[in-house]
C-alpha cells in the first residue's frame, strides 16, 4: 500500500499499463507538451514519446473516432476528453460507433477503448463546463461506464478498463483529483459491473458514485459519530452495467434508501436506482426512495448561485433525516452541518 492522490493513482496506472503493453497509447488535447489540463499525464510524453502520447487538434469527434478505428485494429487507445462537457462533440462517434461496432457487425470487431474524462461542478466554470452527463453514456447498450471515488478504485478500475475489450467511459471528477488514499501496489483490476458496500449499516442505504460516493462515506461516518446512526453506504463504481442486486439486497436489510447524484434529478441516474429498488425491494421499503441531485438549471457562474445549485452536505443530511422520520424514527438534530 502507498498513499497517493487520485490524480497520482491515475497517472501511475497509465504509466504502468503503457510499460506493460506496447499497444496502449494515449490521445487527447494538451496531454503531452502541456502535460494534461489536470496533469494526469505529466511526464509521460518525455518518457514515451509522441507516438504513444499524442497531442490532438481540438477535434473531439475526429480524435475519439480515430481512437475507435485504431481500437478496431487491435490497439488499446486511452483517450482523454478534457472534461465530460466536451464529449458531446464526440457523441456520434461514442454512441453510434464505439458502442455499436461489436454488436452491429455480429461480434467481428472489438473496440478496446478507454475514454477518460472528468465530470464536476463547483469550480465556477459556468453552464457549459460544469455538467455531469455520464448518464448519456450509461444509457447506451454496448458501453461500459465506470466511476471510481477513491485512489485505489481509480487504479483498479482503470486497469480493468484498459484491459477490457469493450469501450469504457471512465468517469473522473475534478473535486476528487486531490483526494488521498491507500493504493495497493499490485495490479489487480476491479470487476466492472459490480457495486461496492463501502460501509455496512442497518439504518438506511446511502447510494452514490464518483464524488457523491466520497460525500456519502464522509457523511455516514460523521452521522455515526454525532447521531449514532448506522448507515450502509454503496459506491456504485459501475453505471453500466448497473449492479442492481447489491442495491436491492441492501435495501431489504435497511428498508430505506437515499440516492446522491451530481447530475440532474429528472430522468437521472437516481431515477434508475429508485426504480430498480422499487422493482426489487418494494415490499421492504418503509419510505419512498429519496434523491438528492443538482438543481435543474444551467449552472450559474456566481459562487452564491452555484453553491445553491449543487447538493451540499446539509442537503444530504436533511434527506437522510427526513427519510428516517418517514420510516418512523425520532431524531434529535436536523440540518447540522458536517462539513
Amino acid at each position, binding site marked *: 500500500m502507498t498513499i497517493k492522490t487520485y490524480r497520482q493513482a491515475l497517472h501511475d496506472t497509465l504509466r504502468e499499463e503503457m510499460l506493460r503493453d506496447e499497444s496502449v497509447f494515449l490521445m487527447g488535447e494538451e496531454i503531452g507538451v502541456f502535460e494534461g489540463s489536470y496533469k494526469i499525464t505529466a511526464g509521460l510524453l518525455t518518457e514515451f514519446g509522441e507516438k504513444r502520447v499524442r497531442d490532438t487538434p481540438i477535434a473531439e*469527434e475526429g480524435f475519439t473516432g480515430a481512437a*475507435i478505428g485504431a481500437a478496431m485494429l487491435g490497439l488499446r487507445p486511452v483517450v482523454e476528453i478534457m472534461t465530460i462537457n466536451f464529449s458531446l462533440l464526440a457523441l456520434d462517434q461514442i454512441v453510434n*460507433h464505439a458502442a455499436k461496432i461489436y454488436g452491429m457487425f455480429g461480434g467481428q470487431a472489438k473496440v478496446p477503448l478507454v475514454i477518460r474524462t472528468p465530470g464536476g461542478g463547483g469550480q465556477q466554470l459556468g453552464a457549459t463546463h460544469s455538467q455531469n452527463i455520464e448518464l448519456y453514456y450509461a444509457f447506451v*447498450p454496448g458501453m461500459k461506464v465506470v466511476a471510481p471515488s477513491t485512489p485505489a478504485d481509480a487504479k483498479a478500475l482503470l486497469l480493468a478498463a484498459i484491459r477490457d475489450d469493450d469501450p469504457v467511459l471512465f468517469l473522473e471528477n475534478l473535486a476528487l483529483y486531490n483526494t488521498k488514499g491507500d493504493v495497493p501496489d499490485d495490479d489487480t483490476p476491479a470487476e466492472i*459491473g459490480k457495486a461496492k458496500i463501502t460501509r455496512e449499516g442497518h439504518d438506511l442505504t446511502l447510494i452514490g458514485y464518483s464524488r457523491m460516493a466520497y460525500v456519502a462515506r464522509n457523511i455516514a461516518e460523521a452521522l455515526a459519530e454525532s447521531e449514532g446512526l448506522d448507515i450502509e453506504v454503496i459506491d456504485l463504481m*459501475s453505471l453500466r452495467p448497473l449492479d442492481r442486486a447489491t442495491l436491492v439486497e441492501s435495501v431489504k436489510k435497511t428498508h430505506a434508501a437515499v440516492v446522491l447524484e451530481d447530475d440532474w434529478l429528472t430522468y437521472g441516474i437516481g431515477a434508475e436506482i429508485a426504480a430498480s429498488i422499487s422493482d426489487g425491494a418494494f415490499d421492504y421499503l418503509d419510505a419512498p426512495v429519496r434523491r438528492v441531485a443538482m438543481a435543474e438549471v444551467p449552472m450559474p457562474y456566481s459562487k452564491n448561485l452555484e453553491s445553491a445549485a449543487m447538493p451540499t452536505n446539509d442537503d444530504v443530511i436533511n434527506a437522510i433525516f427526513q427519510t428516517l422520520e418517514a420510516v418512523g424514527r425520532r431524531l434529535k438534530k436536523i440540518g447540522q452541518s458536517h462539513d
Partner: protein
Amino acid sequence: MTADAMRSTKAGAKPKAPSPRTTSRQKAASAPVAKKVAAKKVVAKKVVAKETVATPPAARKAPVRRAATKKVDAAQLVQFYRDMMLIRRFEERSARAYTEALIGGYCHLNLGEEATVVGLMSALRETDYLFTNYREHGYALMRGIHPNHAMAELYGRVDGVSKGWGGSMHMFDMTHRLLGGYGIVGGQLPLATGAALAIDYRGLDEVVMCTMGDGTVNIGAFHESLNIAALWKLPVVFVVINNGLGMGTTVDKSSAEPEAYKRAAAYQMASERVDGLDPVLVAEAAQRAVASARAGQPFLLEVVCERLRGHSVVDPAKYRSPEEVAKVVKLDPVPALANRLVKEKILTAVQVRHIDEEETARADAADAFARASAVPDVSTLFDYNYATPVANDSRRRPGDPLFPVIPRYNVEVAR
C-alpha cells in the same frame, strides 16, 4: 449544377475511345498546394468549356489534368465488365427482393456506380482496408465477399456477412478487410483515420480507403478527419463519390465549393477528380491515390458518377425531370463498357451476353442461398452485448421484470 454538368466543365482528349461520353470525361486536377503528389501534374492542353449551366467560376478555373494513358489490358477490361455486371444484377435482385419484403429497412443501391466501385476496389491489395457508407453492396462484393453472404445479410439471415445484425447499411468482414458499411453520414471517416493510425503505429505498409458520398464533405467529421490524417501523414485515401445528389439535394445546393477535391487544399493534401463512369480511369486514379497514401501522404479523390435510381429503393426520385433521367440512363456505364468491349473486338456480343447470364445466375443463386438461410434464433439476442463478459450484463426481454414478481398473498416481509 448536376454531376453531369460538372463533368462537362472539364475534359481531356483521349484518342480512340468508343463512347463519346467517356472520351470527354477524363480529367483530374492536382491540389495546387500538395507537398508530395504521387502522380505527376499534367495540365490539360484544352479544357472543353461546355458551361451552359451555372458553373461557379472556381470550377471553370480548376487545374485540369489528363489521366495517365497506359495501354488498357484487355483481360482487365473484361474483368471489370464481369464485376460491374455482377453488381448490376445483384442490385437489381436486391431491389426485387425488397419489393417482395425479403429485405427490410433502408436499401441503397450501387446502380450507376458500378464503374466507380470496380475501379476503386481494383487498386486495393487484399491486406488494405475499406471503410464505406451505407451504399456498399457492390464494395462488399468487390472486397471478395461471396454474393451469397452479402444477400443473406440483406435478408437478415445467420449466413449474412454480419450474421444478420447489420443489414444493408452495415456489412462487415474482417477477413476481407471490409471494415464496415456505416449508416451515419460521415461516421466512417474518423474510424478510417484511426485505422490508418493503427497501421502507422505498427509500421505496416497497408492502406485504408474510406469512401463517402458528395453530401459528406459538409459534415464536421470530414474536416476533422482530413485534418488529422494530413497532420499525422496517415496512410488513408478519402474518396468522395460525387453522383450529384445527396438524397434529393444537388451538390450545388449543399456545397459552397461544389468541386469536392478542392477541399483538400485546406489540409495541404494531394487530390484529384476523375470520371467515375470509366472503370479504367477510376482504377488509374485510385492507384495514384493509394500509392500516395502508402508513401505516407493521405489523398482526397473525387469520383464523379451517376445514380441511376432514387436515393434508396423506395425513393421514386420525383425531384428529377424525365429529361434528366433520360440523360442519366444514356450515361449508364455498364452498357457503355459492353459496347466498348465489342467495338474494340475484345469480346463478341455473344460473349458479352454470356457474362451477363453468368452474373445473373450468381445473383439468382445468392437469392436462393439467402432464402434458404436460417433467421437468427431469438436465443442469440444477447450474444454480442460485450466482447469481454461483464457482471450484471442485462439479458432482459422487453416484458421481463427486473426482479421476480411475487404474488401479494405470498409476500412475507422479512423483518
